[in-house]
Every structure is written in structure tokens, then in C-alpha cells.
């Protein structure tokens, strides 16, 4: 039987010990008219060989593309060591480290992770992760409202990732929290400081500061942070962890730094994987630690005085505090976080800096190449980090489909979320792109927009 070790003799002996005739008798407390005879509508069991073949066929039918999509999920190179280490059974198949002495591997790894995220964000405390960047933003809003004790509105720039705003709304609406949209400047794509200053912040608890924002545009984080502090608002930084190797970290922003920093950890060694699992990181100032949601690992000592690690401040959590907990969360994204920890250890500070710089150099190079393509123009001026919004002289759906036929995913359409921007495309260039890849995109865009030659009739994948 798949995954069940019992022999017939085992079953007979076990039933005898229990004192019943059959396994079915073990379900005798279930009202009999509720019992199912059999599960309908389920396909028959497949052996591992057939299952493998099925999945290989599906994977191959999906193919692989030259990918220029970003928009919250980034194709970075992942060293082979990362997943070979974290899929080791002792990490992969362990659970939450409730018995600390039997879980020092997981616990130390999480402690190292927390230390690394503090280093990257220049914040004082990190939790052991949340589900993803978007839900982490939602939790940060809840946390800020709890901390502020009064405000129930949170200022949310329109330049924040649209899906993140939706998720934050989903998670905070039941508690009556209102997200107030802050517009962006049409020319720069940056959050509109003037518009912001005009907002009545009386009932507001916090301001969200994305860096870079959804358009890849670099915000004036210092100014936004100063503004927030001047109004007594908490600052929730929403940051890209790779970008932090180059950009001023939230803990160092003017005005005393952000209070809470969140983001998605996916760029740190997690595969795109169709959307997940990724993880959300959350760091904050030391003083706020008791309102932090999620698990925390602390160092302590054992009976012999040796260093060891354990879950700590569990009194914040649902299994102790129940309806008064800081959140209902009871898992973290342990395995994903393990991958990120190994990734950061492998890259180190200089490696991360170089990855970030190469991403950015590619963006600049693509900008130069596309500047020469008729029908393509940048949507916003000013500095960006590794993704950039362009306006193209044709419907983006058609352009993307034509690129797809050449084995290229040309970027993410802006129109569904930002109809005001026209035929907008968000194009991302990570360090995985080589000069030839950028040229290939530029040449195909030029051809497609120029309609110099007919599109080929059929799709071709690389």
C-alpha cells in the first residue's frame, strides 16, 4: 500500500490488541448514515513511475521562456548548493521546533536568518518570517494600528504593488481598517509628496513607503519617512531585499528610520515556482517587539551554560494567547527561509551587492537599447532598480503575445491595474540576463512594433 507499511499479519495482531474485528469498527462513533461507501470522482491511484511520467509531460509542455517579467517575483540565479542543502531530510521533514533540544538545527538556522534580515534592513528585530510579502504588508498594517492606539487609517501609496494593496485590504478590512490611497506623480512615478501633505492624517496610524515601488522607481524614502514622523505616523517600509544591498536600508532612513520593514524574500534564493512558496520578512524596532506577529527565535543557554536556541516570546502567539494574540499565524515559511539563509551566506555582503549592481546595470543597458526602438518610451524619468516601466505604441497584449511566439516573456502589463498609464509594460532585467538577451528583446520589439515583417504563424518555445 502506498506509504503504509502494515503487513497483513501486523493488522491482524493490532486489531486483536484493540479488540475489534475490523478496521471499519474503529469508526463506530461516526453516525452511520454519514459514512461514505467510497470516494466518488477521484482518479485511480498512480504508481510513482506513472506519476513521474505525467508530471514530466506536463512540465515539458509548459516549456521554458526567456523571462522579463518581474512585478514582485524575480528570476535570480540560485546556486545549486541552496536547495541541495535545504531539502536534506532533517530540515525538509522536521516540524516547528517545539522541542528545542531536538531542533537546534532549525532553531539556529532561524536565528541566523533573523540576524541576516536585521543586517540587510538595518533594523533591530526580525521575526522568523510570514507567508509572503503581501500578507506581511497586511500584518504590518495591523501591527501599526495596534501600536498607534487610535489611528485606524493607513496611508498606502498607489505605487505599491496592486496585489499587495489588495491583500492588505483583505486582511485588514474585517477589523475596520481603512487604506487611504496616495497618488503618484505622473512624470516621475514617485509618491506625490504634495498630495500626501494635503491629506488629513488625524485618524491615521501609519504610512507605507515602498522602495523601490511597483514601477521599479526609487522613492524619496527619506522625505516620506520625515513626513510620517512629523505627523506622528509609524513608517512601514516595503522593500526589495536584493535592492537593499545598494539602497539605503529602512533602518537608516531620515527621521529615525522606519518602524517596521517588510517585503518578500523570494529574490533571496527562492525559485519563481509559479508564485510560491515565497516568504514575507518583517523587521522592526526593538521597542515594538511585543506587537510583532509570527515566530521568534532567541538565544539562551542550556543546563551546562552552553549556547542554544529556542522559540521565545510565545506569549504573543495564538497557541498561548488565543483570541488576544498578535496574529493567528502559527507557521512560518521555514523551508523558504532556510533557502534564503543559505543564499545570503553563499553570496555574502559583496556578492549581494554585485548581484544588485548587475541587475541594475542590465536595466540601464536595456533602457539604452530600447531608447533606439521607435514606439517605445519610458513611462517615468528618474532612477530605478532593476525594473522599469515603458509605454509601447501598440496594445500590450498583442505585443506580449508576439514576443511569446519567439520564446520571450516580455514583461507585465500595467493597464489592468493602471489604466491611466495607457499601453504600459513593466520590464525586469535581473543579473541572469546577458547582453544578447537584452538585444534579443529589443530587436523583437523593434520588429513587432515596426511590423516590418509578418509575425510567424505558430508559437515556438525555447
Amino acid at each position, binding site marked *: 500500500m502506498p506509504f503504509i507499511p502494515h503487513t497483513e499479519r501486523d493488522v491482524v495482531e493490532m486489531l486483536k490488541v484493540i479488540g475489534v474485528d475490523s478496521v471499519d469498527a474503529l469508526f463506530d462513533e461516526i453516525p452511520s448514515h454519514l459514512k461514505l461507501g467510497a470516494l466518488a470522482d477521484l482518479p485511480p491511484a498512480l504508481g510513482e513511475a506513472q506519476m513521474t511520467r505525467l508530471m514530466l509531460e506536463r512540465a515539458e509542455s509548459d516549456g521554458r521562456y526567456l523571462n522579463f517579467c518581474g512585478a514582485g517575483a524575480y528570476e535570480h540565479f540560485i546556486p545549486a548548493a541552496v536547495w541541495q542543502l535545504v531539502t536534506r531530510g532533517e530540515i525538509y521533514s522536521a516540524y516547528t521546533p517545539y522541542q528545542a533540544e531536538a531542533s537546534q538545527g532549525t532553531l539556529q538556522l532561524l536565528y541566523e536568518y533573523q540576524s541576516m534580515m536585521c543586517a540587510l534592513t538595518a533594523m533591530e528585530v526580525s521575526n522568523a518570517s510570514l507567508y509572503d510579502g503581501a500578507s506581511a504588508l497586511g500584518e504590518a498594517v495591523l501591527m501599526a494600528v495596534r501600536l498607534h492606539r487610535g489611528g485606524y487609517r493607513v496611508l498606502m501609496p498607489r505605487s505599491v504593488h496592486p496585489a499587495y494593496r489588495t491583500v492588505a485590504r483583505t486582511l485588514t478590512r474585517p477589523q475596520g481598517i481603512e487604506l487611504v490611497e496616495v497618488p503618484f506623480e505622473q512624470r516621475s512615478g514617485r509618491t506625490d509628496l504634495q498630495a500626501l501633505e494635503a491629506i488629513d492624517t488625524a485618524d491615521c496610524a501609519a504610512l507605507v513607503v515602498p522602495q523601490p515601488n511597483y514601477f521599479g522607481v526609487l522613492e524619496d524614502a527619506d522625505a516620506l519617512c520625515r513626513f510620517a514622523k512629523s505627523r506622528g505616523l509609524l513608517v512601514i517600509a516595503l522593500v526589495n531585499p536584493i535592492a537593499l544591498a545598494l539602497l539605503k536600508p529602512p533602518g537608516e532612513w531620515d527621521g529615525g528610520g522606519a518602524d517596521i520593514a517588510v517585503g518578500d524574500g523570494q529574490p533571496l534564493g527562492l525559485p519563481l515556482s509559479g508564485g510560491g*512558496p515565497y516568504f514575507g520578512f518583517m523587521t522592526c524596532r526593538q521597542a515594538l517587539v511585543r506587537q510583532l506577529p509570527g515566530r521568534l*527565535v532567541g538565544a539562551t543557554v542550556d543546563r551546562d551554560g552552553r549556547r542554544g536556541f529556542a522559540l521565545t516570546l510565545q506569549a504573543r502567539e495564538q497557541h498561548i494567547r488565543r483570541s488576544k494574540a498578535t496574529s493567528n499565524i502559527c507557521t512560518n515559511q521555514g*523551508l523558504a527561509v532556510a533557502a534564503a539563509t543559505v543564499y545570503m551566506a553563499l553570496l555574502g555582503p559583496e556578492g549581494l551587492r554585485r548581484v544588485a549592481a548587475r541587475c541594475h546595470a542590465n536595466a540601464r543597458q536595456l533602457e539604452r537599447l530600447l531608447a533606439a526602438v521607435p514606439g517605445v518610451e519610458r513611462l517615468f524619468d528618474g532612477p530605478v532598480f532593476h525594473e522599469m516601466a515603458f509605454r509601447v505604441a501598440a496594445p500590450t497584449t498583442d505585443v506580449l503575445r508576439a514576443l511569446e511566439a519567439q520564446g520571450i516573456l516580455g514583461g507585465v502589463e500595467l493597464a489592468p491595474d493602471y489604466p491611466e498609464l495607457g499601453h504600459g509594460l513593466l520590464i525586469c532585467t535581473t543579473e541572469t540576463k546577458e547582453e544578447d538577451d537584452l538585444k534579443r528583446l529589443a530587436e523583437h520589439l523593434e520588429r513587432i512594433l515596426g511590423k516590418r515583417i509578418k509575425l510567424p504563424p505558430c508559437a515556438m518555445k525555447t
Partner: protein
Amino acid sequence: MLIFELSQPGRLNTALAPEWVEPEDIPAALRRCSAIALPEVSELDVVRHYTRLSQRNFSIDTHFYPLGSCTMKYNPRAAGALAMLPQFLARHPRAPERTGQGFLRCLYELQEILKAVTGMAGVSLAPMAGAQGEFAGVAMIRAYHEARGDGERTEIIVPDAAHGTNPATASMCGYTVREVPTTRDGDVDLDALAAAVGPKTAGLMLTNPSTLGVFERRILDIQRLVHEAGGLLYYDGANLNAILGRVRPGDMGFDVVHVNLHKTFATPHGGGGPGAGPVGVSEKLLPFLPVPIVTEEGGGLRLLTERDRPQTIGRLSAHLGNAGVLLRAYVYARMLGAEGMRRVSAFAALNANYLMVRLRQAGFELAYPSRRAGHEFVVTLKRLKQETGVSAMDFAKRLLDYGFHAPTTYFPLLVPECLLIEPSETESKQTLDAFVEAMVQVAREAREDPERVKTAPHTLPVKRLDETRAARVLDLRWK
């Protein structure tokens, strides 16, 4: 040794780091000036450090791990391998659906499988964990009442035996929590429930079998009480493993259910995640399901979003939830098939009842001796504690020395000095017998040499850790 303590300034894995290019156009004011206090170590350092660190864990792959309420079953290695095929890993979440039909086919079929095993009308794979599934479920209950203009329902009823996530979720969704007590036999106290339900009742959250390991026998009475009061019923799928293919939440009258794929569908726990907590709903809650949802149209698959589902409670993640976890669960489900699903509950129940009877025969006191075990059961060490001073925690720590992960301790909160024991169906009789032997040994030690048990563990990488100190003298990062 922490990875930071291996660091040497200037050490760099050049095979992994591109050449530096000065990013000249980023204004100085936006640039990072401070150093990043990450470790500077070699690839070999990293491999050696984390390989050795991993060896300091207990895990299913190395130890019997009867952690009650966590369903620590074998995680098939094929599921991991097939979810990590290069094309799946490379798939960008914003790539057009037409470029990922193979991938989406897996998710769609998983939705259908979950509908079949829960007996619900619709399923969304969006929630990224059980607790997020609970959130989605209660948020849908809220949305349902709101959509009907029924604004007076402010309470969620939760049995006192419930997981902490239930009341925490209810609070997170803006509800007041009302607890109902449990009878001596482990059922919900129906009289108390009848007294509790009313026009303020938005819903009831129930785990069945409960966290006490027993099946709620009067589930239909409970259902009637809540529904008649206008409330909805939420099924917490934490213990679905116990009844998989035997009885379905939908048939019991539940309106919402979440499924912990990392429990019942054997996806790896990964040291605490990622999991996945799909939600299923009855007809009346269909419009409120969280997006995205995979749908079939004209032979192709696409994702339903807010635009297709205007009444949705919304989105729970930026993309597609924990898609890689969903793929693993899909592989597992297909390898089980219909009969395999029923075998899961059959052998989970067989193992739990066998272990329960063996331990009772060996002198351990059961919290609910008159009941069948679902897939887990509760032992109380109250008497042992009184007689020897050895607590459930001491007992648990000593089991580690015998090479067994400890059962869940001090949960459910109702039972003093308790161990919640869940063997899962993937463990053999021989392993259970060895565990009984260890339990007996520790009990004997508790009487003959209690200090040895109270100071356990003795053979692990560290001795008993001072958890009080961890909370008092907070040390949350390397400095």
C-alpha cells in the same frame, strides 16, 4: 558555531558573484553607505555549516515524530522531486496562463480532488497555511452575513478544546469569541451550546475529531443548533487525516472547511512551513471564495480574479499561494487515488487505537478512556506528576534521549500534564511497539530515578534549555 562566527573579511565566492558594475545613476542620497553585516564565508563553509546544523534536528526522515495535532507522516520524496521540475520552478507567476497549462492542470485537478474529499461545492487553493485558511473561512462567513444585510452577528463560538488559531482568527476577523465547554467524555456540551447560540451568532468553528482526539458524535445536533440560529459552521481541517474518505465535512453540514495540506496531504513541514490551507465552501458561500481560483473554459485553464468574482473576500497572497506546496499535495493525492485516501484514515485510526490500547495496558492513564481514538489520543501524567514530581515536559524531554520525538505536551489545555499522541498511518507496528517500550522505560525511570528524567535530555546536542531566560534576556540576533 554561528555562520557569522566563521566570517572572514574579504572572503567571497566569486563563482557566484558577478563582476561589480558601479551603479552610477543611483543618487548618493539613496545609496547604502553602511556595511551589511552578513557573513563572509566560502561555499565549503556554507555546505559544511548547514550540513552539520541539519544533523542537529529530529525529523520524520530520522525519527518517529508522534506530535499530536501535527500529522507528522512520511513526506514522499517523489512529491518533492516532481514539484521541483525545472519548468515548474522557472514558471513566472505573471506569465500568461496559456504558457502554463501543465502547471495549472495540476492545480485544477487538486481543487477537484479537494472538493471530492471534503464534499464541498467549491475550493480555493489560495490560503498559504491552515491559519490563513481559517482567516479566509471566517472572512467568508462575515462577507456572507454582510451581503445579506445581517449586521448584528458579532460572535464566533469556539469550543474550549479548540486550537488557539480558532479564537485568534475570529478576533482577527473582528469577531468576539464565545467559548463553549466540553463534557467529561470529550464532546461539546450541547446544553451550553444551545444557550450560547442566538442572533449574535455568526458561526461556530469546530475541529472534528476534536483536539481531544475523539469524534464529535452529536455533530448533526450541533449543526442544527447553529444553523437554526442563523449561524454558519466552520470545519477546521486540522484532523481531517482521521476521517479522510470516511465522512465528509460537507455531508456533516459544514459551510466552510480548510484543509492542511502539510498534514493530511503529506507536504513537508520544513521546520515550520511552508504549508497550504485550501478552503472549501458550500453553495451559498461560493461567491466569496478568495481568488485566484483555477477554472476550466473551453478545454483551457485560467485563473479567476477579482474581476470575475466581485464578491470575493479578496486575495490572500500576491500571486498563487504556496503553489509549490500545492503541486506536492497533488502528486501525493494522485498516488493515493480513491482507495488510498480511505486507507490513510483506516491506518491512522488503526495506529492510534493500537498505540492507545497498548499504552493503557502498560499503565498509562487516558484522558478519555471510554472513547475510540480518531488519529490521536490524550494521555495524562497527572498521577505520575503527583507521585514523582516528573512533569509531562520532563517526560517528553526524556523520550528524546530514547530517540523518539516527544508527543505534543500541555495541549489540549483542558487536560493536565497531557501528552497528545498522533502516530500517523505511515509508521509501522514495530515502531509503535518500540515507542511503547520507551514510554514504559521513562515511566519506570520517573519512579526509580526521577532526577534523571527531570534533567533530561542528556544525549542531545544541548541539554535542557532555559526558555525563561530566552524570553527575559532577549537575544534575537547575532551582534
